[in-house]
């Protein structure tokens, strides 16, 4: 296999995104096939790359024969390619729902073009080894996010997307600022080379870079004071968009966070200390993320709209993952990975099933869940199972994740142990509102019997995608050994910054 074919993962979606948009009669008829075929190609090809990575280690793609640290290069490591596969699966499910839906028929061609751009952009973000490239595709990513949020022509969705537009543009400005600064002092934009030289730069520059890079992804990470867009965006967006936002958008930004903090800054052994500004970055981040966890959980607790509850619960989970990552230890990292696994699968399923349960109701609030178990038995069961998986039923990935999180912070009594109370609070609140929703499903609704005539047809696309995700969940439940190896390998890779630098820059020496 040619090492440089990895780039097809990005090029083919971009090409077909333009192709799909063309107003030619033939394409108008067959754009669905092109759309799905592209996604399938990406999924299958990434699996192929994964097998190669397993055999030979990291794959480095060099574009235009400019060896790193010059030019654009893609790095497909075990960590990144596995992330990509998981995201492709979620994307495929969401795409199937989108394609077989009736109410988006008019502009389906245009939207599928946007979705393909979205696919290309997050593939590039995850694979890239170059900071500027990351910035460019991050922009495309945010723009496609804005478009798909505003698809539903409602007050909410427009408001949400404008909020997102403004926040993400400020974020990109901060990112660009940081990139400019890095280029000014280090003269390179290659991630490996930045990582190599990061320790040598001055204290002030380090802090400057960290704050600005962090500030740029905070809005995508749904951390509290920066997440004011999610309230309207999630509630106003279409169902497949909710799946994309909760299953992909925040996970991609989590990936960026991990790459920046662990690969570039070498966070576990970062030393940010000077006599003038003794910065305890761990404490700063912990305070920040704890606040975010508390606020997001409280909003989820008091909201009535189903989509809002799920959105804020997802935001709280992302903050919990960040909280785990902040420890900078292997156990914290593995906890984060386990929670990410649980989020990627069960959150989209929660959105999907809740959408089906509340279908046909005027207001999508808690009361529309009543009697769900009799109205929509299949989706209610999906909802219950995914909620239980998400909250951390014993022996699920989320349970092990929380176990590792407790180990990370509670095993040694120190200043940071007090933050474990935040996690206990968060878990309690989360259990409360998820179980309240499940409880609503079993409540018998007396008024329901009158309008029994509503058609209760089961849409095949929802059925199949729900079945796929639930079977993945159950496989994870029955065979926990699957993620056992994954975690070990991922943490080995992430905590070995030197190897990452070596594999990339050695190529440049030749």
């Amino acid at each position, binding site marked *: 296999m040619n090492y440089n074919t990895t780039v097809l993962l990005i090029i083919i979606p971009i090409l077909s995104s333009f192709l799909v948009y063309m107003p030619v009669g033939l394409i108008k008829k067959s754009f669905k096939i092109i759309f799905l075929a592209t996604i399938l190609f990406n999924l299958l090809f990434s699996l192929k790359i994964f097998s190669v990575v397993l055999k030979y280690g990291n794959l480095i793609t060099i574009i235009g024969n400019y060896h790193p640290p010059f030019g654009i290069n893609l790095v497909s490591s075990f960590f990144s390619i596995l992330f990509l596969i998981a995201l492709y699966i979620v994307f495929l499910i969401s795409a199937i729902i989108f394609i077989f839906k009736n109410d988006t028929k008019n502009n389906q061609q245009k939207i599928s073009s946007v979705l393909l751009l979205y696919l290309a952009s997050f593939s590039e973000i995850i694979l890239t080894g170059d900071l500027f490239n990351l910035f460019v595709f991050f922009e495309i990513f945010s723009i496609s996010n804005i478009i798909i949020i505003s698809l539903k022509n409602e007050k909410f969705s427009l408001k949400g997307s404008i909020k997102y537009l403004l926040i993400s543009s400020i974020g990109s400005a901060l990112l660009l600022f940081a990139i400019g600064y890095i280029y000014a002092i280090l003269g390179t934009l290659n991630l490996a080379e930045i990582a190599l030289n990061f320790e040598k730069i001055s204290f002030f520059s380090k802090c400057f870079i960290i704050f600005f890079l962090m500030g740029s992804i905070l809005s995508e990470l749904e951390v509290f004071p920066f997440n004011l867009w999610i309230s309207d965006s999630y509630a106003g967006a279409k169902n497949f968009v909710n799946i994309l936002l909760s299953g992909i958008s925040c996970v991609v930004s989590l990936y960026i966070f991990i790459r920046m903090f662990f690969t570039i800054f070498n966070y576990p052994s970062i030393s940010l200390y000077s006599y003038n500004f003794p910065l305890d970055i761990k404490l700063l981040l912990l305070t920040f993320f704890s606040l975010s966890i508390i606020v997001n959980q409280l909003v989820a607790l008091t909201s009535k709209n189903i989509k809002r509850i799920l959105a804020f619960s997802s935001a709280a989970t992302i903050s919990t993952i960040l909280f785990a990552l902040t420890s900078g230890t292997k156990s914290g990292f593995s906890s984060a990975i*386990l929670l990410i696994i649980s989020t990627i699968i069960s959150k989209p399923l929660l959105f999907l099933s809740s959408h089906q349960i509340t279908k046909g109701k005027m207001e999508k609030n808690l009361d529309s869940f009543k009697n769900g178990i009799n109205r929509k038995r299949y989706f209610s069961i999906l909802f219950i199972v995914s909620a239980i998986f998400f909250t951390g039923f014993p022996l699920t990935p989320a349970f092990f994740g929380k176990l590792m999180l407790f180990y990370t912070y509670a*095993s040694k*009594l120190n200043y940071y142990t007090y933050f474990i109370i935040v996690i206990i609070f968060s878990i309690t609140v989360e259990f409360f509102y998820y179980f309240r929703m499940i*409880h609503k*499903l079993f409540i018998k609704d007396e008024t329901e019997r009158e309008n029994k005539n509503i058609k209760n047809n089961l849409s095949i696309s929802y059925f199949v995608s729900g079945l796929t995700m639930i079977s993945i969940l159950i496989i994870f439940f029955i065979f926990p050994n699957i993620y056992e190896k994954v975690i070990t390998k991922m943490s080995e890779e992430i905590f070995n910054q030197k190897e990452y630098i070596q594999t990339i820059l050695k190529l440049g020496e030749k």
Partner: protein
Amino acid sequence: MIIGLLFYGIILSFLALFVRKKYNFLRWIIFSFYIFLTLFLTITIGKDSTYFETFNLISILNFDLSLNFRITPLGWLFTLFTTLLLFLTSIFSIVKNKNEDAERLINFFWFILIISNTGLFLADDLFTLFIFWELIGISSYFVISPGWVSSFRAVNYYFIFSIICSFFMFSGIMILYEGTGTFSIQKNVLYFISLFENSPLNAIFVAISLIIGFFVKSALFPFHIWPAQAHAKAPDDFSSVLSGIIIKYGLYRTILFFIPLFLFIKEYPVNHIMVNNIPLFSHILAWSGAITSIIATFLAIESNDMKKLAAYSTVANMGYITTALFSLSSFGIAGAIFHTINHAIFKTAIFLSIAAVKYRTHETQMHKLGGMAYKMPVTFLTFLLAIISAAGIPPLNGYVSKWMIYQGLLSSKFPFLTLAIFLSSTGAFMYLFRALHSIFLGQLPEKFDNVKEVPFLMQIPMYILMFLMVSIGIFPQFVINLINSVLTSYNISNINIKNSMIFSPLSGIDSVKVFLAFTGSFILAFILYLIGKPRKHVQPLDTYTAGQDPADFNLTRELYHFAYKFYGPFEHMFDSFRTDTKEFYDSIERKINEIGGYFRDFQSGSIRGTIYTFMLSFVLIIIYWWLL
């Protein structure tokens, strides 16, 4: 074998889900059968402490997360009596749940609960213990409130308390794990003891995190309100399980951890504060038990709902058990374990008879009932024996264990604790008699004239419970010998028992002689009754109206039934001491909701506000960094 049992339980629970509503008795028969199987296996395995099983699950970063099971004398004893009582309750449930709504859901989660019950008591490591602990919390949520609006608030008290306590416990476990590198209970307990010598701060953190769980699960003050909520609103047959068994889990874990610790400190009291020859911490716990029992007794006297009354009685009993346990004498510990078993038996009897009354009358308010004794004789007899046992009157089982508790407390010189227990024990007479009077004696309301005794299948567990109460009361040696093996495993001196004669440091009783004396006096009274003058059955209304027609006075039987505000004057005495603990928790909930509501409105604010917030918070972070 244990893992197989748990595994088949899960399969059966799913199978039972698919039984059609028409044949739902089949579902409950599968359920009973499984519990019987568990009981059978528990007895056949025996209390052989060498039995051991491991199931490898997963290991993350050298974390060995495997399920280990071992049979210890304590775990075996708890498994035996809980499974026996669950089996009796399940027989009751077959008929009871015939027309119950949501019985499918109740069955499924109850199944999970029973599986976890076995797993919890036989767990050999803390990880396994925690898993089953969580499972019990989650599954009992849906048994208490299977889509019922009425019990939703009640279940949340229980659920939130239990989640908080289980995760506090978990953080304690993690500190222990850091020291030992294993989850094994034995090693961790030893490490826990040594931690008190080496790093007291860590040890106190662990102790507090574990004791919070104990306080919550055992409903000690200030968490004493959840049983009255949850037990009262749960399905009637499940209330007996909640009250008899689920409330004991915290106790089990405490015996595992704290008894070895306190006994060690008692023996080597260097660098520790000792009060009355026991550690200060243990003393405080003993007093918290006593306070709980007094508070719960007063609350039980006040309550008018019969299930609430029984729930508060449970809390009071947990108070006695706690006090006895932390008096740390061998008689106290044995008495506590014995009373745990006895309480489970008579409380199951009380709740089942209440469930039987409710099954026929659909009424829980006591003042609306009355005169059920003639209509439901078996239920009446069960209830009568159960409250005699609960009040600690010989010759039933409650007497023996309460006697042991008093002996334990007095022999280790705790006069005030004994007084407190005695006070609440006297209170128990008041509320239990009131329940007996209001439900079974007095006037039968006219609408219940056609009430019949419950079906025979529901009577069977009642007969067995009556038999158990009487036989343990007469021959306590069978249970005490089992408890002695538990005491031996903790290196505590055994209870001196010869046949039915128990010797305490202060005195001794022979329960057979006590039984004979009581039976003799009953027979004497019966003979007097037989040889007395010929009798005529007089209706109470006849005497009330002095021979005139009651209809002239508009007098109905309900009016004559004196049950509402039974202890009104007595309650009035304590008006100025009354505080509402429930209101306290409700106010916390309201405040959390208020804060959440503020943030919710803030989140869906205007677009301009969003931008300002973003910029401002970014600047604030940087300022925060400067100030730090």
